[in-house]
């Protein structure tokens, strides 16, 4: 387990600017200081080092600003660094320097922040784990017991107490698993598919919907679904007095007819049908190419040839001309010998050059015919897209009661915006249709005229432009038609609800739609039933898991109870009122109770149990807090514990048991104990009782305004006192120990002599630590000149000889030698240092 070799504090709370190092060489250290000298500052410095916070802020601050600027020494310059460092010896024996520097102190609205380094390198909280330093459940994370944390478990809410113990007992992981499983359960049933929603709505609104309702709770089958729908259709028809066909499909047709009839009695919805838009596009490029090709040929052809082409063709068809070998009379004008073979050949060549002129013209005429047809078709399409109330006509509207007044009567005034929007879109659509029809008519006429004077045309540009106007008008009409369709759909949906309600046919439409997709419905219902079943199983699984977690916790609480009980008995053995257990309240997972046993005699078996918080005295609760802390700390051993006045000085028995039994047990268990107390008796008791363990003894003062910690176990008087009980011991091991302490004391005497001499000579900076690591052999030559009596040098020399064997495993000094050495040392101290 890790141990603290030293801690170093700078500028933290009552510590001033200038690092104060407190070194620990023993498994137990005790520091005494009156109130307000800085004991708690030391404990909180260690807590800050380990956790980055002080739990007092979390536990006692009623508002955050109470702790504003609490960590930095108020008298220190703002530029001075505030830090706490420590040297940690790991279980493997390696040494590591850990340091935490305060970056921002607690503010009015913010927590403090700090940086952590391990061996000079930036580190995270997790890096402390690698050194064997494990923090417990917050807020009491560090192995440090303060006065203000003793009562924590009795003052917090049952839920917080429960959470604390669960974290301590390390079952938070099970709670996390349980939470993940619970949360995952919420995802079993996702958003219902549209078909399922429709069935749920239909079953709820349809007057004869009980058969459909049952589909939602039973394990589905195709037969069951078919039967439910068929029987429901039968019920609907029977209720309306309509004969029920045997054929299933025929039943749905009858229901549809019935629905249409019933609805139309309330309002003729046919007037709100929206004709679908037919596709139309402007003439393709290929169409124009045929026309433009002909125009090009027209341009290229010789005007005279164009005019005489037909005549030449007929002339060349005359047999005498076709076979001409010598000049003959012209068959057209009868000029004698006018047609020579050369002239006929010239005519033939000219005709060949223009041989596809006619074909091209036919193609162009055909294309123009198509274009004219497209223009007419556009006019037709536009006519078809007229709103139904227009196409059906005034007579239909009057006869069937279709009108805005009726719509307003059905929907009420709240639907006025909807009606106005529909009227506006209807008017816009009519305008757009008129524009398309006009453009189509113009295009048709232009195509016709163009075709009639085809040979005189030179360009298609104007005609194309007319068709572009058609295309633009058609696109615009499509956009407006979409707006009309949307506003009609909105109006229709609103009306549908009212009409169905007035007609008492709510849910019929959904029913008929669902009847057409029974196969899909079967899959959806299978999924729905499976999900519902898994939800039930999941709920049961969570109950099982809760019970199992409780069992695990019960077993862990039982273990913890025994541990708390064992520490309690060390602190308050055989008391009639005693700690009995800490456990969860039955059937209340979030409540943890401390139970006390109340007995009148030594037999605790029949002791009635009560809640400890209610029956324990303040001293007993104090003790229970300490026992709980000890049990907790031993479960998460960090190797050390810091106690800031753990016992009430007025509680003599309790104090004695703590000093004698508890501390001894902790040391036996390998724990390093750092005890800070204001009680001088406790300080002395610990110093003397654990002298054999080389207890580190400190005194805390604040004489100069800042906390100063002095290791008094190192001073000469303390060393002599430590040696005194052993010098006359019969036991060689104890005399050997006395020799070791006395040798350290002689060294200390020499150092104090040298420091005193230097200070007399004006060296105010002289310190004992200047001679750290020096042996008696080094020190004697320096001390000799300072001795006033020649016999004193001899005494020191003899002391060195007496005490030396104690350091080595040679002969252990006798009682006489040790007594003389101690006596001489006392005399020398009187003469030179007092």
């Amino acid at each position, binding site marked *: 387990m890790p141990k603290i070799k030293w801690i170093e504090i700078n500028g933290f709370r009552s510590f001033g600017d200038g690092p104060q190092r407190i070194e620990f060489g023993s498994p137990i250290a005790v520091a005494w200081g009156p109130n307000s000298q800085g004991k708690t500052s030391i404990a909180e410095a260690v807590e800050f080092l380990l956790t980055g916070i002080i739990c007092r802020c979390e536990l006692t601050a009623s508002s955050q600003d109470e702790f504003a600027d609490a960590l930095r020494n108020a008298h220190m310059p703002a530029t001075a660094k505030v830090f706490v460092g420590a040297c940690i010896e790991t279980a493997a024996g390696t040494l590591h320097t850990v340091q935490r520097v305060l970056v921002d102190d607690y503010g009015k609205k913010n927590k403090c922040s700090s940086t952590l380094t391990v061996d000079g390198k930036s580190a995270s909280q997790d890096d402390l784990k690698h050194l064997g330093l494990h923090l417990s459940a917050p807020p009491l994370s560090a192995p440090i017991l303060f006065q203000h944390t003793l009562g924590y478990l009795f003052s917090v809410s049952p839920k917080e107490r429960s959470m604390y113990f669960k974290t301590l007992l390390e079952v938070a992981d099970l709670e996390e698993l349980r939470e993940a499983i619970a949360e*995952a359960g919420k995802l079993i049933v996702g958003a219902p598919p549209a078909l399922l929603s429709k069935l749920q709505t239909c079953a709820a609104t349809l007057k004869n919907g009980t058969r459909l309702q049952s589909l939602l709770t039973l394990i589905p089958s195709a037969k069951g679904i078919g039967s439910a729908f068929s029987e429901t259709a039968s019920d609907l028809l029977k209720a309306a007095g309509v004969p029920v066909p045997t054929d299933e499909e025929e039943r749905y047709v009858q229901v549809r007819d019935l629905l249409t009839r019933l609805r139309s009695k309330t309002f003729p919805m046919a007037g709100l049908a929206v004709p679908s838009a037919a596709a139309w596009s402007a003439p393709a490029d290929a169409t124009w190419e045929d026309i433009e090709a002909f125009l090009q040929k027209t341009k290229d052809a010789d005007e005279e040839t164009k005019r005489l082409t037909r005549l030449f063709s007929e002339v060349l068809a005359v047999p005498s001309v076709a076979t001409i070998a010598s000049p003959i009379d012209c068959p057209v004008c009868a000029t004698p010998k006018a047609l020579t073979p050369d002239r006929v050949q010239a005519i033939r060549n000219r005709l060949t050059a223009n041989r596809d002129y006619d074909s091209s013209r036919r193609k162009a005429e055909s294309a123009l015919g198509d274009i004219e047809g497209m223009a007419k078709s556009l006019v037709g399409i536009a006519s078809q897209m007229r709103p139904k109330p227009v196409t059906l006509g005034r007579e239909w509207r009057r006869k069937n009661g279709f009108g805005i007044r009726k719509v307003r009567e059905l929907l009420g005034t709240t639907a006025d915006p909807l009606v106005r929007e529909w009227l506006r879109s209807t008017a816009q659509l009519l305008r757009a249709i008129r524009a398309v029809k006009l453009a189509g008519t113009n295009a048709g006429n232009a195509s016709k005229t163009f075709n009639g004077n085809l040979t005189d045309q030179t360009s298609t540009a104007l005609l194309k432009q007319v068709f572009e106007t058609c295309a633009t008008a058609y696109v615009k009409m499509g956009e407006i038609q979409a707006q009309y369709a949307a506003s009609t759909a909105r109006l229709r949906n609103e009306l549908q609800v009212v009409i169905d309600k007035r007609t008492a046919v709510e849910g019929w439409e959904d029913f008929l739609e669902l009847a057409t997709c029974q196969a899909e419905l079967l899959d959806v219902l299978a999924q729905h039933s*499976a*999900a519902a079943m898994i939800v039930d199983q999941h709920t049961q699984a969570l109950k099982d898991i809760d019970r199992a977690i409780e069992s695990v916790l019960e077993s862990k609480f039982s273990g913890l109870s025994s541990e708390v009980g064992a520490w309690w008995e060390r602190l308050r053995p055989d008391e009639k009122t005693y700690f009995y257990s800490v456990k969860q309240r039955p059937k209340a997972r979030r409540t943890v109770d401390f139970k006390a046993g109340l007995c009148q005699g030594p037999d605790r078996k029949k002791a009635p149990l009560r809640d400890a918080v209610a029956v324990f005295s303040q001293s007993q609760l104090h003790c229970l807090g300490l026992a709980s802390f000890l049990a907790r700390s031993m479960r998460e051993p960090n190797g050390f514990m810091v106690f800031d006045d753990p016992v009430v000085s007025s509680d003599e028995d309790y104090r004695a048991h703590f000093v004698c039994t508890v501390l001894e047990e902790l040391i036996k268990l390998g724990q390093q104990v750092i005890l800070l107390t204001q009680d001088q008796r406790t300080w002395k008791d610990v110093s003397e009782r654990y002298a054999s363990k080389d207890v580190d003894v400190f005194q805390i003062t604040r004489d100069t305004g800042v906390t100063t910690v002095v290791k008094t176990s190192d001073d000469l008087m303390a060393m002599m006192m430590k040696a005194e009980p052993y010098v006359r011991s019969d036991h060689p091991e104890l005399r050997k120990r006395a020799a070791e302490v006395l040798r350290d004391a002689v060294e200390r005497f020499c150092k104090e002599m040298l420091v005193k001499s230097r200070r007399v000579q004006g060296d105010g900076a002289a310190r004992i630590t200047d001679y750290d690591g020096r042996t008696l052999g080094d020190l004697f030559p320096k001390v000799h000149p300072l001795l006033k009596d020649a016999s004193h040098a001899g005494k020191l020399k003899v002391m060195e000889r007496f005490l030396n064997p104690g350091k080595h495993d040679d002969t252990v000094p006798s009682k006489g030698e040790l007594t003389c050495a101690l006596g001489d040392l006392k005399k020398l101290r009187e003469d030179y240092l007092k």
Partner: protein
Amino acid sequence: MNADTKTAATPTGNVAALLANLKKESLGYKLIEVASAAEPPGRQAAVAAALQAQVKALSKAFAYAKDQVD
């Protein structure tokens, strides 16, 4: 539980103690196995996937039953 669901080879510590308090064939046992095999960020998703697999398997079973009946 579907075959490709990842499960921890040997649960230890608290999880093992918890499993010892659950019936092996129960859904709770299987869900704890799945949850403990997944790392915390994906734990909920892993359990949700396992539950969805259960729903799917059951749906199929219903479909099979339907075919048999029909």
